[in-house]
């Protein structure tokens, strides 16, 4: 694999030519917000939080899906980018119903964390607050559409890592919904192995273990790199 050199925020860095920008940026210790990216599954490029400016490109590019290129010059925190990231978070918070004070992941939520990091202290857009239902038909897990940000992490982990493909997205635009089975109650889906991977990778309180109360649902994704290292490199760290 060949090596390329590029500039990130005016610092010269080198990277493997098969790397994505996001990985290289993070290796430099630069903190860049992401919501749909998840180490270990394919990338979507949907949340648009990881957008960066690349000199010579008229468009902003999502770092998680953009391959590195020799000689590119990347800026990660321009005034415009930070402003857009805030707006994206405001849009996400306005889309469904995010009342953190009564949420199972309060204090452990990635959406909440990124919003706090970027200083989003109020939302300038109208709260859309659609009244969506909650699927508690599974014995162990609950899916609450009112807190879903449609990042599709659950869909990808269920398909690519667990291999069950119980989850998918139905509808389009603002009517998109995560569905289980062919839009059956989760509890009726025989394809679900109840592995819980979707719950662990969900960045918000949309997926949680039954019985969690306010602020009790903490997610862990360490298992993903553990499984993937084991599967791909036969490195099992017990």
């Amino acid at each position, binding site marked *: 694999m060949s090596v390329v050199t590029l500039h990130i925020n005016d610092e010269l860095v080198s990277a493997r030519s098969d790397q994505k920008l996001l990985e290289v940026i993070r290796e430099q210790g630069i903190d860049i917000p992401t919501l749909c990216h998840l180490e270990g599954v394919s990338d*979507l*490029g*949907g*949340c*648009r939080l990881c*957008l960066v400016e690349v000199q010579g490109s008229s*468009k*902003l590019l*999502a770092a998680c*899906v*953009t*391959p590195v290129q020799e000689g590119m010059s990347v800026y990660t925190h321009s005034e*415009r980018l930070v*402003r*857009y990231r805030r*707006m*994206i978070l405001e*849009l*996400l918070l*306005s*889309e469904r119903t995010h009342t953190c004070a009564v949420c199972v992941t309060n204090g452990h939520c990635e959406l909440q964390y990124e919003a706090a990091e970027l200083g989003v202290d109020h939302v*300038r*857009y*109208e709260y*859309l607050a659609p009244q969506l239902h909650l699927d508690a038909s599974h014995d162990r897990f609950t899916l609450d559409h009112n807190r879903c*940000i*449609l990042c599709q992490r659950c869909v990808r982990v269920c398909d690519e890592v667990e291999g069950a493909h119980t989850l998918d*997205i139905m*509808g*389009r*635009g*603002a*009517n*998109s919904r995560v569905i289980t089975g062919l839009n059956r109650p989760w509890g009726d889906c025989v394809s679900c192995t109840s592995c819980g991977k979707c719950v662990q990778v969900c960045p918000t309180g949309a997926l949680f273990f039954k019985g969690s109360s306010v602020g009790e649902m903490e997610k862990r994704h360490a298992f993903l790199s553990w499984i993937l290292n084991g599967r791909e490199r036969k490195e099992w760290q017990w």
Partner: protein
Amino acid sequence: MNRPELQAMGERERERQQSYRCRLLCCASTPCLSSGATAVIETLKQFIKERELDANVLVTATGCMGPCSRGPLVTVQTRGLEDVVYEHVTPELARDIALSHAAPEPKALDRNLLAADSPFFAKQKKVVLSNSGLIDPERLECYVARGGYGALAHALREMTPVEVCEAITRSGLRGRGGAGYPTGLKWDLVRKAPGTRKFVIANGDEGDPGAYMDRTLMESDPHRVLEGMAIAGYAVGAEQGYIYVRGEYPIAAKRLENAIRMAERRGLLGGRVLDSSFSFRIDIRIGAGAFVCGEETALMASVMGRRGQPSPRPPYPAQSGLWGMPTLINNVETFGNIAPIIDNGAEWYAAIGTDKSKGTKIFALAGTVATTGLIEVPMGISLREIIFDIGGGIPNGRAFKAAQTGGPSGGCIPAEHLDTPVDYDSLRRLGSIMGSGGLVVMDDTSCMPDVAKFFMEFCMDESCGKCVPCRVGTVQLHRILEHITNGSATPRDMETLQELCVMMQETSLCGLGQSAPNPLLSTLRYFREEYQAHILERSCPAGKCTMDNVPPLEQGADLQRRARSTTSDAEVS
């Protein structure tokens, strides 16, 4: 079939056509069919049989002739007479037409005539639509009689793939699907891309509201598209092509399917095309009614049987498209330009149009103009000529207000820019785009915020929901426009609109979200005072919006005011 056989076939068909004293060409494209063309054609056929005129008169169902709002249309070609076009033809009139033209002393009627020298026809230049309305789209022979498949035969025999790409590059042809990317350059990229298999796709999804250029081309001259695709396949090294046809276009799909079957049977497509070593198969894929599936990456996902959602580029389809293979994707109208370029030479084509935009463009002229329909004009013609000469101006004595081009990705052009030449770059400078060719004319009864709301609602419904700026941004923009048009907006909303629009343009994943704010931004640019009237004076200058709401913070005052007025009303009575 080989080249001499192809030529012989064309010759036979031309002789056959000339053996009739008169040919009645009846439009059987969707707009005319919906205004009663089927009855006209049936009546004519019946009538010819009854009067035993079969040997002298030929009735042909053709594609679109252009002035669709005047349909059903019938063109009559009579030996020894000029061609004439009749409009609003009824079955009764059709009988009279047949009688009068098939008589030993043929004579045109003096009713329902559409003058051939009227500006509607005179200002057009038909390149892509040169056969449309003159041939029977269901008969391969008709296409071949007008030189069809000659370009393919020429390219296969006398040109190398490199030369074909060069010719297209020299012609200056740019993609007709919206963005205007140079076609020759794209072909060359696919030709050079390494890959064991390559694919060609014709994009016939055409989701813009009101646009029907691509449908008409596919319905009226399907072989033209197939020939263009085959030439492209030869040029880039592909053996398989797909035409993606919008699900709402069953007639187009049927005619294409029939055309593919006929061409394969005659050896013009399929294995060993025209007895050369080149093979090219074409299959049809039917869309399921999503606008976003016109976007190339979403379209390819749909062709492969996946959820029709765009994915980030790079990689571009030219590098990694269908099943990871290099894929050429062009609009069907782009493919419609190929055969004429090969036939007449790149220089001939490059002489039409303007410096940076060559050739002709088909527009679906709609809205408040005297004649709506399908027109093909040279690039660089002014909007004024299109609307006032070809379209015949604004009816009912009203004034022109704006022309909308490019559909939900385009913008509104006001009266002061009517003399701008219509080409890719001029339209872009005005904040609109050429788009695929929708052109909606609006008179002074249109309210611009309301127009912007219409297009935003379209984008909101059609957003695929993959990325946040478009999925939520369109909903928020639509909400604000709703407030503006119902009287509950505040001055702050103008800033929010502007900021959100620019943000969506810069951050959305695909062209839908990136261009969804265009109609809104262009009306903000040219009709700002109309927005201000809605917000500050709570009145709609065009008289369209009801304005019966109030901004949230004024609701208290409004209630008091109303309470007071009802008490005073009560006192009076």
